[in-house]
């Protein structure tokens, strides 16, 4: 019997006891042990344990975010309302580092007030702080990253590339930003801002992330070299001196008409008044008025 017992295979042993009273409890304990071990093996360690530079930056960014951004965007960048059912700030989960770098780097964020559109102003944060904020927001969910320096490096752009950029600019951008990148009006107080004196990186990021009213021109839709060529064309426009004299703001015929009337007609009428006021100085006796005879003559 005993030999028989000892010769019993483990499978048979378990099988024979599967209806044992404590079998359920044993299985449960085994399950818990397995899950617990697996968790211990695969779960990430506590954050404090990681001391890498990146996580420090994220942590710094999180603190800056809590102070400067969370009142509108929520403590965890989830977005929030203003208490009246309107959105105070959108969720920033998934917008990526490029969006943060554009918005904060051009001074648009933090916004001074809500309105039709947040204007460009002097940045409130240092480049390091902006990087930290960007790292924090990027850590929340994947999104477009800040572009590498060589992707918007226009120093080596050829004339051909600049010309190509001009065509792309006229096809995709001028409808809102004006033929010379001077900006234009959009409905309800919104506007396409001027593209003059904007950092190439920020132009690239704007195309990549589509801030405010702007559509997104992702790298799949508009290739990185397309973006670079557009930036090169804008730079060439900005550097170009107006060959015809004072450019009148490069705004098109409206400013030309204004100058034509105010300066042109204004000056000419002033001269007409001056000539009209000049009498005739004949020798001897002053003005010699003459009257033409009766019409009926």
């Amino acid at each position, binding site marked *: 019997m005993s030999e028989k017992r000892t010769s019993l295979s483990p499978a048979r042993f378990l099988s024979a006891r599967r209806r044992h009273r404590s079998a359920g409890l044993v299985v449960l304990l085994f399950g818990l042990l397995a899950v617990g071990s697996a968790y211990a093996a695969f779960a990430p360690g506590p954050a404090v344990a990681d001391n890498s530079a990146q996580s420090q930056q994220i942590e710094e960014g999180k603190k800056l975010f809590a102070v400067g951004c969370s009142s509108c965007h929520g403590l965890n960048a989830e977005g929030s309302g203003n208490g009246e059912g309107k959105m105070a700030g959108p969720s920033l989960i998934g917008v990526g580092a490029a969006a943060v770098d554009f918005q904060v780097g051009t001074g648009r964020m933090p916004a001074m007030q809500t309105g039709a559109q947040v204007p460009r102003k002097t940045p409130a944060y240092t480049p390091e702080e902006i990087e930290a904020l960007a790292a924090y927001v990027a850590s929340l969910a994947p999104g477009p990253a800040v572009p590498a320096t060589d992707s918007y490096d226009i120093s080596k752009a050829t004339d051909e590339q600049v010309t190509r950029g001009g065509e792309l600019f006229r096809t995709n951008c001028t409808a809102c930003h*004006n033929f010379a990148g001077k900006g234009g009006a959009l409905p309800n107080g919104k506007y396409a801002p001027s593209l003059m004196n904007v950092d190439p990186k920020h132009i690239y990021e704007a195309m990549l992330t589509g801030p405010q009213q702007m559509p997104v021109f992702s790298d799949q839709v508009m290739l990185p070299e397309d973006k670079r060529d557009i930036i090169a064309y804008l730079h060439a426009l900005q550097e170009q001196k107006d060959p015809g*004299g004072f450019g009148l703001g490069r705004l098109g015929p409206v400013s030309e008409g204004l100058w034509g009337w105010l300066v042109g007609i204004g000056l000419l009428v002033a001269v007409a008044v001056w000539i009209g006021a000049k009498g005739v100085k004949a020798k001897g006796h002053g003005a010699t008025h*003459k009257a033409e005879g009766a019409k009926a003559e």
Partner: protein
Amino acid sequence: MSDTKTVASQKEGPAATAEFPPPVKWLDDRLGIGKLGKKNLRKVFPDHWSFMLGEIALYSFIILILTGIFLTLWFRPSMAEVEYQGSYSLLKGLHMSEAYASTLDISFDVRGGLLMRQIHHWAAVLFIAAMMVHLLRIFFTGAFRKPRELNWVIGFGMLFLGIIEGFLGYGLPDDLLSGTGLRITQGMIQASPIVGSYMTFFIFGGEFPGDDFVSRFFTVHVLLIPGLILALVTAHLFLVVYHKHTQFAGPGRTEKNVVGYPLMPVYMAKAGGFFFVVFGITALMGALLQINPVWLYGPYNPAEVTAGSQPDWYMGWLEGSVRLMPGFESHFWGVTLSWNLLIPALIIPPAFVTLVALYPFIEGWITGDKREHHLLDRPRNVPTRTGIGAAFITFYGLLWIAGGNDLVATHFGVSLNNVTWVLRFGVFIGPVLAFWLTRRIAISLQRADQERLLHGLESGIIVRSPEGKYSERHTPIGEHEAYTLTTHDRLVPYEVGPETDTNGVRAPLRALNKVRAKLSAFYYADAVQKPTAAEIEDAHSHGHEDDVHELTETEAFREVTPDKH
């Protein structure tokens, strides 16, 4: 006036031919125009700055012809596709029409080409602006009245042709802006019911933009319309000489004479000098102020458009009218009526310009005035006309502003929609307000004139009578001023007359005449009538007995103790 002599007294000199030096005599013997020239060189013109506004237009036209000839030497009116290889690097290698490429060549590779282009364009801006200012002068002074109604129509024709001419010129370079402008025009033409599609196919030689429009527009721009304008200029000036120039009222000036200086030498010098001033200012603008930078717009491509696509200023009001119109259209029997273009582009502007063109006849009919007028009105003396003019300016001006509503929005930091909505109401309310306000101001100015005439000027001298009464002394105005102030006619509304004549026959067109009488009363009812001679006499004799007017208590208090308040 003592220094006024009639030309008639000087007319009979020695025989005309005897005076000429030999070379001129040689010419005169063959052409025989010496006598004609002598007479016309002594033609007298009255002096006033506002009489020179039309000259600005004339001189701009001459500048346009001169610079335009220069431009035709290099411009290639062709839509053949070429690759640009000129010296403007930002467009190098792009495919474009020959018209656009040659415009770039004129701008960058032809010596003085850009200057000529810019002078040409500025002169066009000034040409039409000067015509419009001239038209306003004619309007507000009533210079369009009999016998000059037809000259008004001729002038209006030139303005109309000038605007078409300018628009064609704007379309010729085939850049993105001009192409966009043409596209809008094409849309307006297409909006005309039934004939629209046929008309655009006729004008563009097929689908827009096609290959024909530049060469077609070029011929019309350099040949047809300038020729027509030149013919009209000739007729316009001939009529000015024939009618003789109008003048403002003043001592010695009547409906039957012209007081001023002779053409030779005074106006030869003044007008000649003014020509050089106009040329100089236009050239300065061409040299210093960049206009229509076609290289920035790029070649026309129907797939592209740019913010700030506006026409030149004189089409701005049409643009604004289209921008203000809310969009709606109706479809029936397979026909689409695009009201958002029909009303603002094809109904309102033609109606407006027709009213302007026919105004002399409309006013003449309403007032029933059949007399000739050679003395100008002061705007205040015809308050209703002045008010109508202000209303027209307001209407035009608001539509004009609407044409730039996007730039108004961006530059003043306001919402584009708000600008549009304010102007949508403004174009209806503004003209009414302007009419009412201007008319009231004119009437008040008339009353002020009346006051000066009857009571003289407030001298500021306060007199105290022995009884202690304070009063201010008035000094009568001079005879010259009094004459000037009373030269205009009394304006009497048209009377409708009895319904039936003595034989009991009903007057014809009675309903029409009633309307006319009503309109006439509207024109003249509130105008201040100038005093009669008796009234002036009465006011003056009253003044002699007691040539001070008594001050009211408050007035005396204020005047005499100025530091009390």
